[in-house]
């Protein structure tokens, strides 16, 4: 269990050059705010949905490298996917974080770099923050209220 298991090169890269990070998203139908009550990490996620698929997303927030990098990698992995498919991918990621399986590795793309986080229980919530926000955003979109806020 070394520091490089946790801070994989790919993670540091996403942290330093985040993809899909922005404080606005044109035409977004849904926006959610999540935070981690234990460490205070905060994350906003905006989604634009078209034809039942995620056309684009944007996240913003204040959090550690793991949470921000994970949200960045998630953006890459889910843009273009149908909502149900994205939910399924989120579940695959969650299982990986709890050391309960490796599903859809290819689809997770850079998300797979977070595998080592599973060995650091206190950081698992960080890696999940963006994905939990995504699930919530999809639910909000379906429910049609367009706004959500949760503390994970």
């Amino acid at each position: 269990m070394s520091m490089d298991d946790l801070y994989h090169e790919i993670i540091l890269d996403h942290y330093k050059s985040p993809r899909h990070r922005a404080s606005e998203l044109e035409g977004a139908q849904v926006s959610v705010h999540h935070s981690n009550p234990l460490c205070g990490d905060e994350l906003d996620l905006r989604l634009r949905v078209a034809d039942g698929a995620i056309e684009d997303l944007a996240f913003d927030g204040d959090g550690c490298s793991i949470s921000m990098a994970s949200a960045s990698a998630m953006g890459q992995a889910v843009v273009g996917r149908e909502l149900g498919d994205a939910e399924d991918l989120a579940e695959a990621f969650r299982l990986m974080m709890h050391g309960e399986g490796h599903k859809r590795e290819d689809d997770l793309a850079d998300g797979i770099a977070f595998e080592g986080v599973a060995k650091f229980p206190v950081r698992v919530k960080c890696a999940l923050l963006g994905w939990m926000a995504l699930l919530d955003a999809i639910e909000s979109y379906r429910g049609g209220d367009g706004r959500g806020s949760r503390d994970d």
Partner: protein
Amino acid sequence: MDATMIRKDFPTLERHVHGRPLVYLDSAATSQKPRAVLEAMQRYYEDANANVHRGVHALAEEATELYEGARARIARFVGADPRGIVFTKNATEAFNILAYSYARHRLGPGDVLLATEMEHHANLVPWQLAQAEAGFDLRYVPVTPGGELDLEAFEAEVATGRVALFAVTAMSNVVGTINPVADLAAAVKAANRDALVVVDGAQSVPHLPTDLVALGADMLCFSGHKMLGPTGVGVLAGDPEILEAMPPFLGGGEMIANVTLEGATFNEVPYKFEAGTPPVAEVVGLGAAVDYLERLGMAEVRAHEVALLEAVLPALEGIDGVSVHGPTDPARRGAAVSFAIEGLHPHDIGTIMDREGVAVRAGHHCAKPLVRKLGSVATTRASFYLYNTLEEIPALVDAVETTKRFFDR
């Protein structure tokens, strides 16, 4: 189960008092602790001591794992979901959570909170305080002279359909009675669909196999210190969905999701009800206590106590002028045995017996209404546990005889 071997695990039982080997018959007040429990806490303090949940460093992680690991084992021990295990400071706090965050909010005029005359003050006073604010009716199932619940009166109460909360002890700490909780719970629910069934497990969880679902209980309150665990920890075990729907009780750190100057949002259960630094070492100790009990097997523990009862009940009744309160059939009762000596006051009895090395309790046992119902202001109670042996019964009998002789002078 070999109680003579088991005794070796309990340092206190090696003690002498007033020059005589201690015969500890006060486990219904608090049990003695096996070395395994003391060592688990010692190890925690020496090795992993750190505040839980909020740290990224190694000690904090270890402490959190020990704490949450104990929660999982304690949950399994009573057949509960770990999300429904709230750690409190004692059983009393568990009842108060329900009184403040359930009874005060959900019950009002027209509702009945049905308790029984057999209850410990912990399962009475919180409801009385809530009643003064919320204005529901507080009614009681009477107790028969034999120390059992009056089931006809119970049925009449239940039939009103107004019972919104039913609070009952699984085992009396004064007269030992084991109540038919599962039947009572079913009857309450049948006629009062949304009623909350609250069970006092302070005496039953240490002595009987316990399963929340089999009991039909929504909520179960018990204390660590009566089941080989340390002081400073109790448990509210219940349905996590019901807990989730309740407003918070104590405010502070750990129980929040977010805090601004204007207000707060709350964490999920069980954390919502665990404000502030929890009793970490105590929970670790209680986890070790549960491991110890599971290793012995709760069915074995119960069988041992039935064997003790089969000997002690006739032994006491056989003494001239002595009468035992409560059920006479060991199958219907636990090992808390209250008795009276004609013409003598329990306080005096307790003092003389102590001189003989026999530790019994004298008083109202925090169940004044029940003791009053037995026609007294106090009883003398000898209560047994897994480390008591048949060999200690003659010492009890001798001490009673000596007491009688002392006051016959």
